[in-house]
């Protein structure tokens, strides 16, 4: 069967759960502790699509609202971006708007999916669906609810990116 390699980057404010999503997706586990990422960590996972195998190279970047030149260097060659926000911190949605603007400025047009993460923290949730709809329209990317803790929506997020990549190609 044919194998295709694609680079996917995770973007989002600090502590929204980027590293945790990758850990859940690649290693199937979750860690409660928070260790801020410095630079970038690249992991791989293969997923099977209807008629080919997709090797994902997943770039977990350091989070923050201060997007700089370094970040754009990391984004070179990215086919897809998983933008992550935290359902317990409304400000993290705004960070994604900034990222979108900066992507447009450097004329990068990867496929984008939004993961609204930490959906397991029901009591602390501070972002309702209408805010997500709005964000999704502004950024022009579909969103889904995810939890790196329970695994909900994690594989689905990467599958959705794969689906969008196929659609874009055809």
């Amino acid at each position: 069967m044919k194998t295709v390699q694609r680079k996917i980057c995770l973007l989002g404010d600090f502590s929204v759960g980027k590293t945790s999503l990758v850990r859940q997706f690649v290693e199937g586990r979750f860690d409660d502790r928070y260790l801020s990422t410095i630079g970038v960590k690249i992991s791989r996972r293969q997923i099977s699509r209807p008629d080919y195998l997709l090797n994902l190279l997943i770039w977990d970047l350091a989070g923050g609202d201060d997007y700089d030149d370094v970040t754009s260097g990391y984004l070179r060659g990215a086919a897809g971006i998983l933008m992550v926000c935290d359902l317990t911190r409304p400000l993290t949605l705004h960070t994604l708007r900034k990222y979108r603007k900066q992507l447009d400025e450097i004329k990068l047009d990867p496929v984008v999916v939004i993961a609204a993460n930490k959906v397991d923290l029901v009591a602390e949730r501070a972002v309702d669906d209408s805010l997500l709809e709005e964000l999704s329209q502004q950024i022009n990317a579909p969103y889904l609810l995810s939890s790196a803790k329970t695994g909900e929506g994690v594989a689905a997020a990467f599958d959705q990116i794969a689906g969008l990549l196929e659609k874009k190609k055809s």
Partner: protein
Amino acid sequence: MKDSKLPPNLIEKRVVEHLGTRFAYALLDPQFKIKSTSFNFNELAAPEGEGLQGMPLADLFPELIGLEESMGELLSGDLEALNLDAVNRLVQNGSEGEEVVQYFNFTLFPADRRRPGEGLIFLIEEVSDQANLRQDLVQERNQLRLTQGELARANRELQRLDQIKTLFLSMAAHDMRTPLSVISGYIELIQDMIRDDEPQDKSLINRDLTIMQDQVHWLNRLILNVLDLNLIENELLVVDRQPFDMRLAVEQVARSTQNMFKNARQHLSYHVPTADVFVLAESDRIKQVLFNLVGNSFKFISRGGRVHIDLRSDIDRQKAILAIEDDGPGIDKAYQKHLFKLHYRTPESNEVQGTGLGLYIVKKLVDQHEGTIWVESEVGQGTRFVIELPLLSNLQKVS
């Protein structure tokens, strides 16, 4: 001059020693395959790798997959250099064999500036010390921001609760005035009757006392709600659940609110099944739920309005279903989902007495009984509150 030509790897070693950093490099052909490497390349980049010559660099560094286009631009001279800073790599740590994160900077640039198409140099530099320092700083900054965020949130929540408390106090005081003024009116009436020195019609006095009694019950329930709010806020609300026939609650609540309805020229009716409807519940709490819901409907219906309590059991789903229906003004869809929140009141309900506490407490009590509650209503069509509780099986009833 015998020593003037040191072997190249010795020069490299000295340079590396002198700079005090760990770096290594490889020369790549235009297909990005390794042509040659510095003496220490293996040590930094390929612990077990021998015979790296001819190997595509991306086999050693998957980090470079996806960057083919940019690397092509290096060869064509369109790009001067390509940097990847602080790439995290898991490295086996010495004898223990445990894995630790090390950080590396990668740089790619043409080997010959004037003829970039000939090949590239790949430079790898270990920067763990700086990165670890940065990690400490960033970690601290991020933790601090998270704490700030939490504090701000806690602060807003406190302010909100504070506002609610103030609002609640004034509403509660307002609500309590109604039964109190009714009671005080009847006391005066009875005092007048006694002062008149006439032989008294006992049944008249008795009727007035009954009305006063109803109002005292009403006051009592308002006060109970206030007390329960305290329990709920401090997470101390517990229910003592025993096998209990729900029909009793319906009958008792209907009986003791009957007068209140009659005096207001309103109608209360109920229906219970002939077979028992056993649930695991604290009977007083179930009555409190009913009182609150019936009292709520009572407030919103107009003169001549109706409230109906309906109890049935759904054997298939093993549920007791209790519904309280009224022909009042109905509730706008937009407000329905907020109804059970603390002190939420619809704009229409502003003129009607009630602390707005009742539904919140009802919801908490139903939760404590592992039940569900919802509302079905449309503006102008009346309102129906429905509660479902798990039915007790025959076995449980006996034990």
